[in-house]
């Protein structure tokens, strides 16, 4: 396990304390180049602290961290040019237009993307000449993304990007992130929306109490794929449910019994939410 070119982020035994409180108590992570990696966890789990250490905003107390091959604590401007950080703007920002804002940030990078192209990519072309305070909340968040990607980063950090979005705005946002990912950008996303992780992430890690509880694909994390399935249908005396390791056999038997369509048939595995709640030790 070396820092090969296919590893974007490598974290071993990361620790961070604030006074008496241990925020991060030994986190290990490996994020591969080109993947979308979601860090899931409740508030106070250590998500933001971990990400801010990776972004070079905070110093760690222990462990090793490599981001794009460098230690963020000592990395210089050339390293900053290779990462993008999406932060949240407030509506009371400076009296600048969208185009001026994106242009300003573009000018700080050695090989930025074309500001107008980036504005188009986040769907703000019609608002390019508008001042920041004229934008809606969703439009501001898309501007945040524009500012994060205008430097053409290899690695993009997104900390809870869709908090406060309505469902349609979230779908649009997800499309934007998927587009960036297919363009080859490695993305580290933190979220507490499980559907967001499921829709976007190639792999997820669940963090709780400052430790990683499990890592895997959204479909397979916590042994999710191998868990017993639940088969449900509408029997003569109401809804029926059976837990089984062989759902296909159960469905075939039901099909034979009903002689065709099984009324109200469902086959479900534990949802990501079920697994998540189990992992963070909050099973109801």
């Amino acid at each position, binding site marked *: 396990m070396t820092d090969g070119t296919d590893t974007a982020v490598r974290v071993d035994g990361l620790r961070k304390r604030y006074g008496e409180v241990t925020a991060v108590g030994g986190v290990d992570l490996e994020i591969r180049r080109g993947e979308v990696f979601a860090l899931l966890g409740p508030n106070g789990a250590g998500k933001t602290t971990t990400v801010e250490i990776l972004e070079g905003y905070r110093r760690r107390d222990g462990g090793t961290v490599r981001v794009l091959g460098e230690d963020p604590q000592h990395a210089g401007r*050339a390293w900053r040019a290779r990462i993008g950080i999406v932060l*949240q*703007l407030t509506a009371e*920002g*400076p009296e*600048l237009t969208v185009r*001026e804002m994106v242009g300003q940030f573009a*000018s700080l990078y050695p*090989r930025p993307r074309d500001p107008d192209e980036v504005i188009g990519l986040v769907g703000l072309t019609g608002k390019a000449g508008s001042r920041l305070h004229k934008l809606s909340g969703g439009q501001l968040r898309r501007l945040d993304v524009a500012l994060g990607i205008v430097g053409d980063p290899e690695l993009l950090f997104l900390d809870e990007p869709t908090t406060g979005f309505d469902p349609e705005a979230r779908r649009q946002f997800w499309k934007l992130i998927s587009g960036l990912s297919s363009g080859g950008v490695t993305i580290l996303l933190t979220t507490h929306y499980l559907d967001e992780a499921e829709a976007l992430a190639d792999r997820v890690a669940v963090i709780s109490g400052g430790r990683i509880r499990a890592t895997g694909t959204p479909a397979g994390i916590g042994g999710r794929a191998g868990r017993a399935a639940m088969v449900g249908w509408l029997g003569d005396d109401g809804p029926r449910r059976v837990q089984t390791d062989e759902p296909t056999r159960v469905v075939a038997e039901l099909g034979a019994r009903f002689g065709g369509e099984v009324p109200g048939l469902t086959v479900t595995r534990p949802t990501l939410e079920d697994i998540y709640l189990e992992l963070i030790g909050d099973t109801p």
Partner: protein
Amino acid sequence: MSTPMTQAAAAAISSRAAPRLPGVWRAGLARVRLEVKVFFRDKQSVVFVFSLPAVLLVLLGSIFRGQAAGHGMSVGTLFAAGLIGSGIASTSFQYLGIGIATERDQGMLKRLYGTPMNRWAYFIGKTGLVLVCTMAETALLIAVGMLIDNLRLPTSAERWWTFAWVFVLGTVCFSLLGIAISSVARSARSAPAVIILPFTVLQFISGVYVPATLVPPWLREIASFFPLKWICQGLRSVFLPQHAVALEPAGSWEHGRIALVLLAWIAAGLVLCLTTFRWRTSRDG
């Protein structure tokens, strides 16, 4: 196959291999342009920072029009000299103090810190902004003073020289103190309280609104620890007739002391800036 197209492509590839970070001066000048643009677009800064001293000068000049301050000098000229000093502090100390606290609170500083920007470019931007605004502010106040109360531009080279160094030392001093006090304010909302109250008190005891001779000695004593009194005193020596020196509590313009006090505050301000400047709020940890 050596068409211009492939040459351009080759150049693009080689520049990708060795990307050059934007230089500090280019980034700094770009920030100056942006800062000045933001300043003059923002109603708050145009009204409260830029126009207020001129409005006060018009008001005070009109109220005391024709009244003599003694020694054949009008009160309006005294106010003009004082308000030019206060104007310098307004566009440097007050604007930077509140402006930077607000940028920090809104996460703009954190955001810039996350980019490959050379950190000094930010301070070059602020320096340029203060220079442009303070010069414009001073020109405006001199013009208003000339219009309403026969303020006269200095006629001797010696007075211009005094004006130049008082202006430069005063601006540098108040800019550094403005940057330093921005870290005292914990949020954008508390910044005006932290900054405007002490600034207003300082203006009253430093001879801006009330002639220095009318300020009780113990308050004058307090004022003499701060830079504003010395800047105003220097400006009076520039804009008032020579015989007005008789109105000075010290009986002299004290140019040497003015320079010393301002240089001491510049040194203190620089140390404070270098040791306390934060790119993030304390809430950010």
